[in-house]
């Protein structure tokens, strides 16, 4: 069989080397099926002669093909085209992808199902403070500083699972100052983003079917996480003082975990008073449960100082405290923190070591300085003034235009305000008004485990400036007012 039947043409003028040309041509012929698997190639000498190239060039081409698996050289019997071809190389053949049924894990299936009924989303919308409201110059200078110096140090830095020690030191003193937390550097863990915290807590403490009690209505992202991991979520009602702790006593099976937001209940905004906090702590101690205290936006109380956190009152080591820089520093930093109870430190350390050891060092170093140089608290003070004004605008406009037909939650805290409309309205009417005015307002339905309360909404005012907010709320409220 003559090799030129396979259209092995060589271009002497080409810049591509002769051996590559030859290899490519042969490869092409093999992939197209012009030369069948198992076919014995002519000897190197013959090939070289036919193509008018040197023998060493020809043998280089054959070697390259053999290394790539297209041909197999067998001692004594010459070179054969391989029976299994690497012929699916994308540059030569379009991939024929077989559609397949995928067997996901139960966890994966669960996520998919929840997504299909609209409970989770792959893309999120950001509704917090705006970038322009942050001290970007200071942040830039700190980043620049650490991009210059920290990176060199990084080579010899052995990452600690709980995070960069200087940042932990800085945040510990902040938590003690601002939140009266009981915390040491050894018990503080830094997380690159917030989600992993709840996941690791649940994995460490809950088996499939174990009970976690949570506020109803309550933080929906957290609830989705608890459900996804296979926990049994037991709803506990919420009143004007937050979670109704007394209900815990009535549960047949005491929970392993209790999730709550005592500083500012999500979404109602209720603040848990001292008496109830004590009861909650006593309950946890008596029933060997852990409390997850999610202190997500405690920085923002507009009348008086923030209440100290629950964790600081706990004398039985039952509280896992979560906080993050999200509400203050997003979108530039979304680092999250966890104060781990003494009894869980070793386990959390091991878990963190396995799942997330790396958190951007430059970012951690920059935040450490940001805290130590006082910028964080300065920023919080400034934002507090701004958010108080924004909140006031919302309340004033709503009250003046809608009067008694809207109820506004009285708690003066947080980045959102909860409102309820009179039952005379239809939710479609309100949703139309939201769409028309561009009001940053969302139904609380997703927060409920039990039947959602109709006509209840939160207004996320933090991302919009006062003047603009005044116009938007006015437009919205007037439209609603016209309905009656």
């Amino acid at each position: 069989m003559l090799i030129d039947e396979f259209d092995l043409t060589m271009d002497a003028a080409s810049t591509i080397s002769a051996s590559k040309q030859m290899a490519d041509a042969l490869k092409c012929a093999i992939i197209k099926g012009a030369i069948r698997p198992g076919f014995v190639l002519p000897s190197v000498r013959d090939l070289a002669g036919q193509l008018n190239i040197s023998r060493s060039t020809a043998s280089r081409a054959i070697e390259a093909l053999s290394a790539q698996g297209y041909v197999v050289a067998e001692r004594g019997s010459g070179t054969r085209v391989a029976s299994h071809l690497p012929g699916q190389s994308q540059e030569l053949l379009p991939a024929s992808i077989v559609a397949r049924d995928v067997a996901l894990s139960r966890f994966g299936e669960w996520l998919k199902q929840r997504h299909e009924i609209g409970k989770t989303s792959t893309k999120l919308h950001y509704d917090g403070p705006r970038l322009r409201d942050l001290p970007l110059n200071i942040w830039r200078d700190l980043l620049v500083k650490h991009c210059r110096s920290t990176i060199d140090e990084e080579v010899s830095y052995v990452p600690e699972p709980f995070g960069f020690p200087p940042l932990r030191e800085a945040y510990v003193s902040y938590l003690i100052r601002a939140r009266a937390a009981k915390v040491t550097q050894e018990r503080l863990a830094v997380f690159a983003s917030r989600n992993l915290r709840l996941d690791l807590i649940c994995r460490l403490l809950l088996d499939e079917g174990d009970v976690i009690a949570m506020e109803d209505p309550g933080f929906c992202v957290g609830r989705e996480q608890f459900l996804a991991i296979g926990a049994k979520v037991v709803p506990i009602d919420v009143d004007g003082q937050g979670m109704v702790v007394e209900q815990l006593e009535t549960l047949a099976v005491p929970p392993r975990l209790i999730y709550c937001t005592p500083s500012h209940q999500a979404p109602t905004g209720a603040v848990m008073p001292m008496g109830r906090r004590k009861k909650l702590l006593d309950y946890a101690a008596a029933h060997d449960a852990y409390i997850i205290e999610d202190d997500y936006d405690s920085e923002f109380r507009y009348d008086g100082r923030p209440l100290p956190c629950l964790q600081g009152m706990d004398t039985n080591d039952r509280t896992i405290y979560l906080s993050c820089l999200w509400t203050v520093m997003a979108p530039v930093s979304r680092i999250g923190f966890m104060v781990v109870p003494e009894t869980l430190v070793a386990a959390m350390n091991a878990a963190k070591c396995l799942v997330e050891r790396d958190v951007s060092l430059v970012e951690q170093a920059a935040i450490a300085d940001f805290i130590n140089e006082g910028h964080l608290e300065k920023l919080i003070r400034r934002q507090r003034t701004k958010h108080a004004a924004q909140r006031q605008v919302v309340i004033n406009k709503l009250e003046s235009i809608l009067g008694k037909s809207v109820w506004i939650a009285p708690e003066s805290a947080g980045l959102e305000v909860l409102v309820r409309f009179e039952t005379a309205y239809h939710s479609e009417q309100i949703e139309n008004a939201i769409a028309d005015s561009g009001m940053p307002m969302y139904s609380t339905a997703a927060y409920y485990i039990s039947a959602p309360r109709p006509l209840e909404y939160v207004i996320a005012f933090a991302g919009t400036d006062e003047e603009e907010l005044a116009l938007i709320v006015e437009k919205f409220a007037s439209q609603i007012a016209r309905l009656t």
Partner: protein
Amino acid sequence: MAIVINLEYKPYVALYRRLSDALRKAILEGRLKLGEPMPSVRDLSKSLKISSSTTLKAYDDLKKQGLVVSHSGSGTYVAETLPGDLGDLLQERLSHMQKSFSARPDAILSSRGELLFETGKKQSAEHVHVPALEYGGTPLELSPVREWKALLLKYCDVSQGEEYAEVIEPLGFMPLREAIAGYVLRRRSIASGASNVCIFGSKQLRLELVGRLLLNNGDIVAYEEPGYPENRNTLHALGATIVPVPVDVDGMSVVHLRKLEHPPKLICVTPSHHDPLGYVMSMQRRQELLDYAHEVGAFILEDDFDYEFRYGKPTLPSLKALDRYDCVIYMASFWRILYKSLRLSFIVLPDCLVTAGSLCKGYLERHLPLIDQLALTDFINEGYLEKHLKRTQRLLAIRRQSLILAITRYLKNITEPLEETAGTHLMLQFTIPLPPLIIERIAWNTGFNIMNCHFYYCYLGVAPEKQYIVPFATVDSDTIDSVVKEFSMAVYKALESGPDAH
């Protein structure tokens, strides 16, 4: 001794003072151990490119602070005890590091929590050994730190990135995903689009995602034996049943896979460069493995580790590029290039897992550091990445050659011959009747950088005792010959005096 000293830039502070501060820090962090020798003045001056008189002055400074002592004739040592509170500080720090891993939690953990805890403890114990090897990554002096820094600095002004900053994409910054899709298409013939690329801030979360998405408790994962322990641990902690599958020169044995009573749901392989043995999976084996995975409906997790570093032979196409069945999950990182400075890593999902994968990513990790992503996008698009790899390849080939030469010259009679391998290290199997501890001590004393790879084996019982990884990326071609010579002489001496002499 591999101690990295960073002279922080401080205006108006004398150079010797900056050096003594940095060394003080190293002592207090326990990186320079109490009672152990300080780096020699000559070596340190040379590596920092400063005069020896400056270094001497810094050492004097430390002496005055009581942190180091010098014994006439034998050089300078870190003090046995530190002055004042410093000793307590160090003690506390070290004991804490120990404690956090050894202490039992008093809390009652869930059964999966127990598993997580036990595996994590094992992992952190093993991890202690890894840093020595990590420094053997790619040659440090070639790390494009300057270019990387310049790009980071460009993006420190976050106000420039307003339009990106407020979009939360759990899968990562879109332009970066596009850049990576282009890169894997160029280098690895992987034709998946940017929508299949998923960026991670932490390497281990990649395994976490794959495991969570595909594996139920007790599901079978076929894992190379020996194989990279870290990934195995993360999957084990998820409750997967790890089934070790032997590896031969052609890669994971498919014959062995076919003999399994229950087929695996996931097959983890390092086809470009088996870790740690260095074998490259043959073309035929790749095809067989893909066919097998398709037959049993398994997914393949391809850790494309070190594919850039093959010596004298062309790189083979990745499994992902050969995958017609949509069953390969491809995973790679930039760790080799910029070390810990660049923590981002990625996976390329098969089409059938894109939706579920992005939901799972949103569950595990939603936010990634913005400036790192912006800088890496430029780093790839402006060609630094590939330029760097090319330079590294050249240098590595030279270093590898000089190490092979030295080994053949001095260790031929006490080790098994080397196989043809890829990557940034060689494997050495000692055939002498010395216990591994003695070999390791001799290596440490003579400055020959080797690491026992027993913890790469799933079943420690079957691990060869004296199999070592010898990284060559940081080997100095001029001195390696004398290092290996000295090592071999010490080994022969130990052999003569018999193992009991130690």
